[in-house]
């Protein structure tokens, strides 16, 4: 199993290194190396997943090598293989494989075809590094490396001004979260003496007694660490107030948006909190914060999605909103549900992005949905796939998204988090609106281009889309039992009893849950949303349009992303530069250099000019001075 997991992790890295050295060689070679290296990971992960579905209790830790050893502790690079890591690696490598195949078609005309795949395979490796980490050091390394890959890939088109702005922004915002992460990690090291998850969990009883004083205020150590780690997770998983980098990251190539900014990297934060569930469980304050932030993000970013026109940005805001659902589930201690939604979301959101890519390609890189219409007959396969993915996203009964999302909502109700329950239920309405907005505007209406008998795209683009439909629709139904009820995550997450209870009282079985949901409020909200969007976007009912025009003030707030756009693009960089200029010009140049350094020089200069006038060169001046000094000396030192 050690060998298999090594292959899973390192085969993408080897692929990436090979691609790096194969600069400008044939495209077919690049295609083969990239896809083959990811395929190894995907196939092996799938095999291990099946193994774990049968024996979910296996936990293996393997050490690869010693990164650094100090007197006090040893930092190892090592891997953990348990149900959670294999489950995640299955999601990541599968989505990655499909996106790689898709990219073969999508990036076909790019001159830097090779570079693109070198980056994506490297990204897959770094993501797997996070997933298989059993200690914080490796987590942090992987964490930064996915940030790096994201940086390189958003800025893949190096001459596109918006893209190179967006990648800088993404990297720096993620770095803000990393401050939290590294401080949390260092605190853990300072108080546990080790960075292994295992040691942290073992010393929890001890830690919970400790407090730490920051500038005179005593805070509980566990809460502080949990909060700092959450800060890291919030930046990576684009939660308020660190969410504003994700929409801009859509400047990168579309396959990247599907892989990194929808399915995998942005879920790293969710994964980390779930992985550390025994730890987070100790700090109810922080869990409440997570729940609050999750709900807030889910609804507020959904609202922003409503006013966007760029198809990719709408889906990006939708991603943030869905990540909010996962955070809310984590905050309510339903870790398995969060991971479950993570999985279904990874598949249907990747599918949505791939469909968006297909649309964008067909429309000559036009992304404004107001300018695209009537593609239903031109892109029939994309249309059906997009429709099914949308159903999953809005949570239509029996689809994957339905099981994962509705279970989170029901679990919150069951858990007694009524406010969160209402907020997330209402979010379904918004989700439905923006999803159907794309669907209606893009695929219906006046057909601008002629339908041709040709295939809509080449196979590399169509096949992944078709393949992704399967998990988008069915994987929820298949996994709901094993994951939620069958103690699949017993060894890695600590919410098994809780979810089991929830499952047995509310869900009972998938079919009954679907039937039950027909009477639940979320279903009515969904229907309401569908009807509303039908009249608003399809029929263009006059009174609704009138209302929306009255709301232009709200629209402006939403368009500016509650001011975050301005803050992140103009205000903060401006004050950074201003402060930098201020300290440089005022403190460095004037005070230190001019006053002290050159000032001392000037004083010495002036002083020496004065002294120089003493050196008159006349003998009688010197004689006079000597005599005067002699008299003074005699007067002073004379022994009276």
């Amino acid at each position, binding site marked *: 199993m050690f060998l298999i997991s090594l292959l899973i992790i390192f085969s993408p890295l080897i692929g990436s290194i090979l691609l790096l050295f194969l600069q400008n060689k044939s495209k077919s070679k690049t295609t083969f190396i990239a896809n083959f290296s990811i395929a190894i990971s995907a196939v092996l992960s799938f095999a291990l997943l099946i193994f774990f579905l049968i024996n979910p209790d296996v936990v293996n830790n393997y050490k690869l090598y010693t990164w*650094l050893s*100090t007197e006090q502790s040893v930092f190892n690079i090592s891997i953990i293989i348990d149900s959670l890591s294999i489950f995640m690696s299955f999601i990541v490598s599968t989505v990655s494989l499909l996106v790689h195949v898709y990219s073969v078609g999508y990036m076909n005309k790019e001159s830097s075809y090779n570079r693109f795949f070198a980056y994506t395979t490297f990204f897959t490796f770094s993501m797997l590094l996070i997933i298989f980490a059993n200690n914080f050091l490796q987590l942090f390394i992987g964490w930064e490396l996915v940030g790096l890959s994201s940086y390189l890939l958003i800025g893949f088109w190096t001459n596109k001004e918006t893209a190179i702005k967006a990648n800088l922004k993404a990297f*720096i915002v993620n770095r803000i979260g990393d401050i939290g992460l590294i401080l949390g990690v260092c*605190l853990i090291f*300072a108080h546990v003496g080790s960075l292994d998850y295992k040691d942290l969990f073992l010393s929890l009883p001890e830690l919970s007694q400790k407090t730490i004083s920051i500038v005179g205020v005593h805070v509980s150590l566990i809460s502080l660490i949990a909060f700092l780690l959450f800060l890291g997770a919030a930046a990576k998983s684009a939660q308020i107030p660190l969410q504003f980098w994700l929409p801009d990251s859509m400047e990168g190539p579309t396959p990247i948006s599907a892989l990194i900014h929808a399915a995998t990297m942005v879920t790293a934060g969710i994964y980390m909190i779930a992985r550390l569930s025994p730890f987070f469980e100790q700090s109810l304050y922080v869990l409440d914060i997570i729940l609050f932030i999750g709900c807030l993000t889910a609804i507020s970013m959904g609202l922003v999605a409503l006013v966007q026109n760029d198809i990719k940005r709408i889906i990006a805001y939708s991603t943030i909103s869905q990540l909010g659902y996962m955070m809310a589930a984590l905050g309510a201690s339903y870790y398995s549900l969060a991971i479950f939604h993570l999985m279904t979301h990874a598949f249907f959101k990747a599918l949505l992005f791939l469909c968006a890519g297909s649309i964008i390609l067909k429309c000559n890189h036009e992304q404004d949905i107001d300018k695209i219409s009537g593609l239903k007959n031109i892109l029939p396969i994309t249309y059906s796939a997009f429709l099914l993915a949308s159903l999953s996203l809005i949570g239509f009964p029996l689809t994957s998204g339905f099981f994962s999302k509705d279970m989170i909502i029901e679990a919150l109700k069951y858990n007694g988090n009524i406010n969160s329950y209402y907020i997330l239920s209402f979010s379904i309405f918004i989700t439905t609106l923006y999803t159907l907005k794309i669907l209606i505007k893009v695929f219906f209406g006046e057909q601008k281009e002629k339908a041709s008998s040709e295939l809509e795209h080449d196979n590399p683009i169509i096949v992944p889309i078709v393949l992704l439909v399967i998990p988008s629709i069915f994987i929820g139904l298949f996994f709901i039992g094993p994951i939620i009820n069958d103690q699949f995550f017993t060894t890695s997450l600590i919410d098994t009893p809780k979810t089991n209870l929830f499952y047995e009282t509310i869900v009972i079985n998938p079919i009954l849950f679907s039937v039950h949901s027909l009477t639940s409020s979320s279903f009515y909200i969904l229907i309401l949303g569908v009807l509303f969007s039908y009249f608003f976007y399809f029929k263009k009912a006059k009174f609704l349009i009138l209302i929306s025009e009255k709301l232009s003030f709200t629209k402006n707030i939403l368009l500016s992303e509650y001011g975050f756009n301005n803050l992140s693009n103009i205000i903060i960089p401006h004050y950074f530069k201003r402060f930098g200029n201020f300290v440089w010009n005022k403190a460095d140049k004037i005070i230190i250099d001019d006053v002290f350094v050159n000032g001392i020089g000037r004083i010495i200069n002036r002083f020496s000019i004065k002294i120089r006038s003493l050196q008159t060169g006349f003998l009688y001046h010197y004689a006079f001075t000597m005599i005067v000094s002699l008299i003074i000396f005699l007067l002073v030192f004379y022994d009276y």
Partner: protein
Amino acid sequence: MIINNIPILTFLVWIPIISGLIIFFLDKYKDRQLFYISIFISSLILILSLLLLYKFNFSSHTLQFIEKTIWIKNFGINYFLAVDGISILFILLTTITTFLIVIFITTEKYLQINKLLSLFLILEGLLIGVFCSFDSILFYIFFEAILIPLFLIIGIWGGNNRIYATIKFFLYTLFGSVLMLVSLIYLSIQADSFSILDMYSLNLSLSTQIFLFISFLIAFGIKTPMWPVHTWLPDAHVEAPTTGSVILAGVLLKVGGYGMIRFLLPITTDAGIYLNDYLIPLSLIAIIYISFVAIAQQDMKKLIAYSSVAHMGFVTLGIFLIFNFLEKNTYNQDAALLGLQGAIMQMLSHGLISAALFLCIGIIYSRTQSKLIDNQSGIIQSMPIFSAFMIFFLLANSGLPGTSGFVGEFMVILASIKANFLYAFLASLTLVLAASYSLWLGKRVIFGNPKNTLALSEINTTEFMVLLILVIMVLFIGLKPEIIMIIMNETTTHIINSLQKG
């Protein structure tokens, strides 16, 4: 074996100096011949230093390869060379950097190339001398003598404003070292010996220690450089030729940190503990304030120079934290060790990364004849391979894990959080600040559309190899810092253990 009997340290110090002096007068030789000679000498020294590493006993903290003979009998001054686990790392850094510089010079055009090459070789010998002298006067002589070749390198081959820069640089550092000389003489009278080791066992009163501490701090603080005595560095860098900047940032700044570890830490421990509350803020100011100054820079070299000051802030932070952990109520030996090791790690890593970045800027300068950021844009369109290198080093400069830039910072932050959460928080701001100035530089210089249509020529094989060697070393330390740890662990542990007296 013959190797066991040769005075390897003497060779390491004097071969480059003597051969440098000879090359200085070889005016009539062709450039190509001079290159071969100097590459031969610098590679010989590199091999010798690797041999030193090979013969070095990692499991001992005592001095090795000791060469001790009487030099000035009347004063009891000895010619005393030796290495321990710390100096050997810096000797290697020196030999590698000089080797790369000598190779790199062959790609650039300079007048009187023999003089430049000879000065670099002399500088190499002097630097090795600093790192392996254990007699205080010998140390002082090497320490001071370094100024001469560097003064000439900047003063002769530098930019337009080179005279101001050299005078500033020279007076600044001389001011510090004069104070140090007085302290050294005082110490030697107390210890009745000029050997640094004998000074360690002195029992000095707190007030004496404070005076000594301050004079050492000024001497080494200027060299490091620490805030607020850093302003000579940006000027010197801007005016220095590329290779001059490389040796300055790569090795010369480390003399300051090395000196602190050799003198400040063991001799004036009590004073350090006493003054500790004022020292750590100085380092934190260097990290944060200087990073902001770096963001504001218009000149690429100045930006990297300021980033050097910010990075050296971690070195001094790591060293000053040791004093904090030696205090009675916060005593923590492991954390002190972590601080020391982190500081050394950071010095080595910064030596490689800043050297590489100055080389990158030199490469850009040789093609566009400008160091101003605003004059560059879209270099990646015509120089993709070079751009990959530069982006790599910029990321390493911002402390990306997997590169050496991360290791030292991580260790120092780990140590600082044990002292005070606030220290760690302020130090960790570098994650954002360093990323801001490094990658913003990358965005403006490397990415985007080229301003002038003139295609820049891609780096040649020599430049490629030099940068590649640096990439390999940066990655190597980043992926397996344990290697460095094995070399220095015994020595650093011994230093911290022997500090317990205070």
